[in-house]
Structure formats: C-alpha cells, structure tokens
C-alpha cells in the first residue's frame, strides 16, 4: 500500500508554496479584504503562468495533465494562504463541469482558455437564502434565452463565463453563459469574507447554451460536479486549518501571562490538541478522497462527503479557537486570525452547508460500514 502523495506531486505543492510565499502574503490578501482590489490579479497570473490552472486538464485541451492528486496539493497550499483568487470557481467547478459534461466542441473552445487562465469560469446555482432545491428554480432558459437572478455567485464579479443552473424545457439543466454578453448585470455583494469576490447576477434574455447534450439532468450533473469539487475544497479547508493551528501554536509559545507562556496552561494546550485531532482526522479523510477522485472510484460520493464534512468542521474549529488563543488581539482587524475565520465560514457554505453534506454522506453510506 502506498497511501501518500508522490514526489512529483509534492514538487508541484512546493513550487506553488514558493510562488505564494513570494506573491501572496497577508498584505496582498488585505488589498482585497479592504476593497482596494477585486482579487489578487498578480497571484492569479502567477498561478496561470505555472500552468496550475490546467493541472488536471488533459494536454489535448491545453492542460498540463498533472493529475488530481497534484491539484489537491495545490488546493491545500492555496487554502493555507487564504489566496484571494477565482481559482476554486474556475478550476474546481467550471473546468470540472466542462470535463464531465461538455461536448467536444465546448471543450475545444473553452478548456484551453481555462487551462491558461485567459478565461475565468464560475458556477451559478444559488437563487435565495435556502439550500438549493431543483424543483423550484426561478432561472429559466427558453429558446436559448436565459432569464432570472442568481442570488450569490462566488467569483461572479470576476468570471468571464459561468455554468448556470436553470430550468429548460426538459427540466433543470446546466448552461454555458458569457458573462460579458448583453443582458448580464452583476452587483458586488458584501459578505462575511470580502477576500472572496461574490456577486449577484441578473440575466435578462441572455443567450445560453446547454452544457453537453443531456438536457433535463442538471441536478444530477451538479451533484457529480460538486462531489468532485468537494474534495478540492476540502483540501483548501485543511490547508487553512493547518495555518490557523500553526498560528495559534506560535502565539501560545511566545505570549506570556502570569509569568509563563500561555501555551503552558492546559486550558489552551488541550484546546490546541483538540484542534490537531480534528485536523488530522480531516486530513486523512482528504487523502482517501483524493485517491477516490484521482481514480474515479465508486467510493467517490462517500469519500468526498466524508472529506467535506470533516474538513469543514476542522477548519471552523481551528479558525475559531485560533482567535480564542490570541485573546483580545484575535478579534482585531490588524491580526490575521479573522482572515481564516472568514474563509472557513465562507467555504463551509460554498457547495452547500454541513447539513447538506451530512445527508449526502449517509445517502452514500453502506449499511455495513
């Protein structure tokens, strides 16, 4: 058994880490946090130039075909730096949608641009403040014309094109839409994590093309896209959780109170031990999900939901208790604790909340497990 990443995959991770160490420090993240930039364009360009946007795209479509295991480690590294880029929307969601369901023509025309990052993609599903339910979609496509509103779209203000869930004649379907087309209007939204661009998008008779040829199965297709993306999001989450834990440990070692480093008090020591435990459980589940993703194993739905649920819980716990370890400084704007706290809560909801994924997990759970 060799349940670990290969040296080549770790090399990709290390290169990504170096890039981000150079170009994606907290200052860059705060440029976006405080609204001086819509996203970290420099970082994005760097990722594209390294070909990371095409990590899992076959060479035939302009990718580097380095595989999903490498992509998982890229995601983990991006997560650890709370990188403010549209990478997850474009690579984990839009690209996956095309790879899974696009026609040959659609792949030919879009994947190369997604691979080199000249085109940024997004996935538009949410229509209100409730979990998605295919049965009452308000966005509709008739005669190739998309009408309706998407309540909140991650990176919706940045993306050039979107895969939009809408009701067509045959039922829910996924449609390709050019976001620069006439009839598209986007409104930037204030969210709990300003380092991730989020927009409301209104569609007024915008021309939309069915993704692939299989109309009416949008919900099932979305489910398959999200299962694959969940693994990559989970790696972003454990990357962030590890960074938050490291930050807490470093502070607890140097900060003194009552004449001792605060990290010598069991109250905080045990809290950080519990952060570590949650993180390691999630990390091991992520490894397994990475294997399932890379091999397209039958276990993918269960493995993805397991990684997603445990990574969401681990990141929310670690980012929350990192603030607690920092005490008063932890909830100042000046300290970076809130960058992780914000991102952990944003990622916990993107792709649907815990209750949705717990439910998916049990749906996929064998009666003897």
């Amino acid at each position: 058994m060799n349940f670990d990443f290969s040296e080549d995959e770790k090399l990709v991770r290390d290169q990504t880490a170096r890039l981000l160490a150079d170009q994606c420090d907290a200052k860059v993240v705060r440029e976006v946090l405080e609204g001086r930039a819509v996203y970290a364009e420099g970082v994005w360009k760097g990722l594209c130039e390294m070909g990371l946007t095409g990590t899992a795209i076959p060479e035939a479509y302009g990718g580097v075909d380095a595989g999903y295991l490498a992509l998982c480690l890229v995601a983990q590294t991006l997560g650890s730096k709370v990188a403010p880029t549209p990478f997850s929307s474009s690579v984990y969601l839009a690209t996956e949608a095309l790879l899974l369901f696009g026609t040959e023509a659609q792949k030919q025309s879009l994947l190369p641009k997604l691979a080199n990052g000249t085109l940024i993609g997004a996935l538009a599903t949410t229509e209100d403040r409730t979990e998605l339910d295919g049965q009452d979609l308000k966005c509709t496509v008739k005669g190739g014309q998309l009408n309706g509103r998407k309540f909140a779209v991650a990176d919706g203000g940045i993306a050039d094109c979107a895969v939009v869930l809408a009701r067509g004649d045959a039922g829910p379907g996924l449609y390709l839409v050019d976001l620069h087309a006439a009839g598209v209007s986007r409104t930037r939204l204030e969210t709990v994590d300003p380092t991730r661009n989020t927009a409301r998008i209104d569609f007024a008779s915008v021309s939309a093309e069915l993704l692939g040829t299989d109309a009416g199965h949008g919900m099932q297709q979305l489910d398959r896209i999200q299962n694959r993306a969940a693994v990559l999001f989970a790696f972003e989450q454990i990357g962030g959780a590890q960074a938050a834990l490291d930050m807490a440990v470093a502070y607890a070692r140097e900060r003194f109170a009552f004449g001792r480093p605060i990290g010598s008090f069991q109250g905080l020591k045990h809290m950080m031990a519990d952060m570590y435990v949650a993180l390691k459980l999630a990390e091991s589940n992520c490894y397994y999900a990475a294997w399932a993703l890379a091999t397209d194993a039958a276990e993918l739905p269960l493995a993805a939901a397991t990684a997603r649920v445990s990574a969401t819980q681990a990141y929310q716990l670690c980012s929350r208790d990192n603030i607690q370890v920092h005490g008063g400084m932890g909830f100042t704007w000046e300290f970076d604790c809130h960058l992780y706290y914000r991102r952990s809560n944003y990622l916990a909801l993107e792709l649907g909340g815990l209750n949705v994924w717990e439910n998916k997990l049990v749906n996929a759970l064998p009666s003897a497990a």
Partner: protein
Amino acid sequence: MDFNDTAAEAEFRTEARTWIQANAPRHLFAALSSSTFGGMNTGDEDPLQAAKNWQKKKAEAGWACLLWPKEYGGRAATPIQSVIWNQEEGVYGKLGGMFIIGQGMCGPTMMAFAGEDHKRRLLPKLASGEEVWCQLFSEPQAGSDLAGLRTRAEKVGDEWVINGQKIWTSGAQYSDYGILITRTDPTVAKHKGMTMFFLDMRSPGVDIRPIKQVNGQSGFNEVYFDNVRIPDSQRLGAVGDGWRVSLTTLMNERLAIGGSIATGFPELNSLVQSLPISRDKAVNDSAVRSRLADWYCKASGLRNTAARAISALSRGETPGPENSIGKLVAGGMMQDIAKYAMDLQGFGSVVNDPVIAEGNARFQAMLLRSPAVRIEGGTDQILRNIIAERVLGLPEDMRADKGVPFNRIPSGN
C-alpha cells in the same frame, strides 16, 4: 414559590412603567428593536446624542443610576427596584450602553475612594450622561493577567507623570474622564506596586487611537500616555493599593442582572419557524428540533438562573455564584447558533449586507462579533478558572509570578 411582585415592588413597577410610557423616545423604538448584536441602531439620530438625551431626561426625573445616593444624582433605590427598572425600560435600555462602564464601574470606584468635593462635582454629571467616563485598565501585555500592567506613574512634586499604553478602552473617543491603574513600584510583587487615579481625558499627552475589530466596528481604543500629568488629589486609594481599588471596580463588572444576556436563541427559533428545508419548515426537521431543544434548555437555564438572583435581591440577599456562568454559556452558544443558522440557509447566507440578508444580517453580525464575547471581560478559560477556584474551591494553578518582584517576572521579552 412565585413570580409575583411584592406590593411595594408592584407599586414601584407601576410608577416606573407610567413614567417610561410618558417619556420614552418612542420614535427610536423601531430602530432600537432592530439593532443587531454588537451594534445600536438609532436611525438617523446620532447614537451618542440620542443616548445623552434619554439619560438626561431620566436624571431630571430621578431615574438615573437608581442605586446611587441622591446627592450624587441617584435615587437611593434598592437592588430589586433597579432590576424592575431595567425590566420596564426594556429596549430603551440599549441607549444606556455607552454609560455602563462609567456608571457601573467608574462611579462605584469614585464613590468608594474619591474625595467628597470630587464626588459632588463629578458624579451627578456622570449620572445624567452629561459627562462620559471610561476605564483604563488592560494593556497589550496585561489582559487576562491584568496585574501584569506596566504603565508607569512617577511622583514629581504634587503630580504624577504617566507614561505607557492602555488598550481595549471602550468609549475613550467620547469620554470626558477615565479611571486609570498604573504601576508605581516595579520592584515589589506585582499585586503590590500599583496605584489608581482618575483623569481628564483631554489632558495633554493623552493620545486615543480606535481599534478596528473583525466586525468592522471600533468600539475599543488604544490610549497612549506621554508624560501625562495628574494631580495627586486625583489619586484613588493609597499609593501601592491600586489592585485592591481595582477589585472594587471589577466586582461591579457583573452584568446588570435583569437585562437578559444575548444567546441568539430567540433569533434562531424565529428563523426555523419559516425557513424551508427539504420541502418542509425547518422546525419540523428532527435534526433541527434536537439542536433547538438543547439550546432552549441553555437559554431557559440562564433566564431561570437570573430569576433566582433577582429573588435573592428581592429578599435583600446577594445572588449566589451561579451567576458567573452567564457569559461563559452565552458566548459559545451564540457562536454556535450563528454558524448553525447560516448553515441552514445555505450559501446565500454568506451575504451580510443588512438590506439583503435575513433579519438585518443578524446571524452574520453574531458570527463576526461573538468571538469577542468569549474573550472580553474574562476569557472562557479565565471564567472556568474562577468557577473552579472560587465556586468549587479547587486549588489555584501553579503560579510562576507569586511573590516575585514585578521586574523579575518572566515576560518572554
């Protein structure tokens, strides 16, 4: 066992209710009621001005600082009367927020340690809201370990010269006066070398800088002291006795009983009554019901615990130690509830624009403010230690700083 007022209490309640109905700023009711956690909504009115107006009105009619002696602007009321007032004042009580520290902590300290002339001159204006006070205690290196404070005070003639930095000072930017704890002798044990003063916040050398919090607000400040001079007549208590004086202040930090502590439960309960999940109301989902039940038990437990404290006051007794659990329970609970409520609403709930998000973005406000609740005024860890040591009588932690001269205590730098 009953929940009824005594005859005297009922009479007082009627008097208070009648006066409030006749005099409260009704036009602010809607705005105040829609305030979300961590903020006070006064519509188009300036919050500070709105607060001062209501406080002035109360003071003129004898409804300010009910527990204080009349000569200092109070009413010489009983604790239970003050509780009843809080209950009746209701949502208008939010307007008192910016006076809580001054009236709740600085005032009692002044009363116990200031000279009579100072008390008669300053306390009535504090009671009427004409002047606002703040408390200059915490420092960057002295949070949970307050006695680790380093701000120096040196005696020069009849004055003290202050140098150093305070932090987490609420309302410093609009305060007229503050009480300040300093280190006057770093060569003795940490609890022995401190001295307390009060000062005019407009004294030369005082520099106030707001601290931006995670939720974007700036309720707290850093306050720098650069050779600030304080007359010895403004010393509170003896030189070196500052720690004992500060305990008087902190004893009053006890949250005002009667005003109930925020948990997020009512908001969650109202949300799940209408929010649909899997084609039904959330409140009918058994997972939601189980969480709702457990959280209701906590919220109700806190409410009933407060009721026991009020009964003690009504009997003229002091409330039991069980009141120390309030913030410990409420802080973590609100953080969990905010997370859960947003989870139920899905990705759409990342939006925290009050115009778009559910209930003025109340849960998003809780998510971003509640981490502070678990830290300010005693971290969860400090509160557990207090319960363990003072209530359960468990032994104290091993101390590395006991009996050691302050300037020889390990500080990591």
